[in-house]
């Protein structure tokens, strides 16, 4: 127990003071109570903002902590979603079909990321090649899924559906209990909290310190005797599985998925969440992923065509003027304010 607490409160993320943890607890409590105060429609929307967070966390881990940038993580989002649709759709009626779909989806994203990661990390390619090849991979996946219209493109009883996408994907269920509406909201909340605390422990562990060292200086870390290729590969696969987790929750939320989910515009979003939040903090990315999903979803629900222009400009402005991320910057300002008031003994060593 003590090691878990130690790992969670280690130095690799913002928010380590008692005030912070009280605030964190209050926010979680508000999220727990939210469904009792509002309509089912709003709860469903908030589920959508929550379910994208693992994808953002995967980006933060890969880009912020390991220094590897991927523009194609939505590919793993899409792969997991489609595979879940195929497996759970074919096993409909079986109470454990969705569970098999979840396992299959996660394994499929890990498998594709594993093969891809082998080629790029074990070739020790230059830094700029990985984002480009991941982008190409996701564009190819979109093209492939787009041309799967028609009856010949079916797996078992499930149609892939071309640009119209796959529809009628089953809810998640465990045995006889189906997660929809409020229970799905709590499922998303649970997954987000588990991912966040799990990753916070990971980045504070020895492994996490080594991946940060790889980000800072690959050669030096290697000369200390660490196999940087294997560690980059592991982080890449792990972050692809986080993206896959978001994909699974997405298809369970909307019961459909279209190829545009792995298109260029979607591919930009996780990078934007991570950049705007601040890639070097998991919590900052959680906050910005939630907030930006809220903004884009609200804008596009109103039929606002400027959504992508606004989000794109936000990215440019962040990169120009707040290169460390807007949320991280605000957190540091707040931290400085409270530190000035508090006694010096409260400062972290």
């Amino acid at each position: 127990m003590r090691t878990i607490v130690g790992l969670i409160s280690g130095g690799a993320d913002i928010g380590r003071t008692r005030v912070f943890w009280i605030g964190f607890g209050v926010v979680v409590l508000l999220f727990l109570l939210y469904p009792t105060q509002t309509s089912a429609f709003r709860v469903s929307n908030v589920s959508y903002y929550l379910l994208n967070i693992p994808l953002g966390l995967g980006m933060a881990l890969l880009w912020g902590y390991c220094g590897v940038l991927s523009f194609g993580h939505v590919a793993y989002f899409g792969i997991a979603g489609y595979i879940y649709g195929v497996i759970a759709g074919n096993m409909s009626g079986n109470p454990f079909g969705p569970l098999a779909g979840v396992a299959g989806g996660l394994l499929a994203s890990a498998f594709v990321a594993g093969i891809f990661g082998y080629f790029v990390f074990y070739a020790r390619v230059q830094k700029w090649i990985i984002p480009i090849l991941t982008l190409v991979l996701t564009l190819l996946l979109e093209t492939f899924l787009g041309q799967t219209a028609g009856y010949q493109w079916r797996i078992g009883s499930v149609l892939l559906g071309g640009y119209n996408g796959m529809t009628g994907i089953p809810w998640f269920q465990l045995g006889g209990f189906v997660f929809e509406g409020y229970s799905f909201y709590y499922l998303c909340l649970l997954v987000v909290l588990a991912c966040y605390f799990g990753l916070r422990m990971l980045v504070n562990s020895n492994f996490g310190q080594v991946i940060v060292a790889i980000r800072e200086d690959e050669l030096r870390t290697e000369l200390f005797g660490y196999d940087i290729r294997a560690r980059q590969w592991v982080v890449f696969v792990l972050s692809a599985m986080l993206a896959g987790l978001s994909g699974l929750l997405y298809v369970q939320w909307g019961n459909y998925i279209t190829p545009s989910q792995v298109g260029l515009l979607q591919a930009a979003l996780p990078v934007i969440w991570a950049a705007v939040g601040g890639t070097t903090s998991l919590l900052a990315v959680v906050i910005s992923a939630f907030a930006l999903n809220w903004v884009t979803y609200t804008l596009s629900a109103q039929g606002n065509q400027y959504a992508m222009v606004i989000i794109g400009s936000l990215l440019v402005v962040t990169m120009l003027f707040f290169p460390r991320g807007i949320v991280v910057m605000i957190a540091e300002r707040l931290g400085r304010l409270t530190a000035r008031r508090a006694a010096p003994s409260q400062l972290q060593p």
Partner: protein
Amino acid sequence: MDVAPLVLSLLYQFGTGAAFFFLAALGLVVILGMMNIINLAHGELMMIGAYTATITYHAGVPFWLSVILSFFVAAAFGAVLELLIVRRFYGRELGALVVTWGVSLVLGQGALLFFGPFLPSIGIPGGSFSYGDFSFSAYWLILVLISLLLILALWWLYNRTPYGLQAKATMQNAEMAKSLGVRTPQIYTLTFSLGAGLAGLSGALLAPTVTIAPFMGQQFVAPAFITVVVGGAANVIAGAVASSAVLAAVKTPIGMAFGSFSGTVALLFAALIIIRIMPNGISAALQKYFNRRAGGAMR
């Protein structure tokens, strides 16, 4: 069946394929090779070129003139982009990638809002001719020729002009070039502007062969970036030429046998395998090979 027309048709497919890869990647490789910056707004700069050509062409300007005009419009746009944004990201490769991606989102969506979902297309100029059972488009042959001319022009620019000399000096050692009186910021602006202009030129040249739409840049993203990745950054022009040829040699037979999507998938696999063997691209491998041979001769 006669063999000559089939061979000619394969050659034609290969040549046009290589020309397409080369044109799609042209502006990108100039910027990458000189400034170590990956410009993800490349597709949108091609879109700007294509839009300029289309709009001026339909306003009555002759096609060739509108192509040249689109070079200058895209180049001006590139210069503004460099001065306002890209300038701050030298030496931060990943930052430059992300910020130019933001620019590309704004430009693509902006074009959609400003010009609507599509523009009337330009008919392919030049007509076609046939030989044996196959017919060939004269315009694509002209594009192959133009690609060859552009290679020559770039070679001339970088080896025979004061700009080329200063640009190569800046690329090799910016600090040293600066202390010898080269105005490196101007060289960077000029180079980025040249790359953007070439992207616009390619966009305009390819405009008659594609649909003119705000997100038309996306279809060039995959081929352009694969060409650059396979070519590598050691000697970008030679790398781009070699990798265009290799990729066309991969795509042409597979595309003919299994359809164009399989051809594109084969491209990604070819790129993954090539970078697995030659992590710094074909150009670095070639350079190593020639260096070794030169070293052997000296001994």
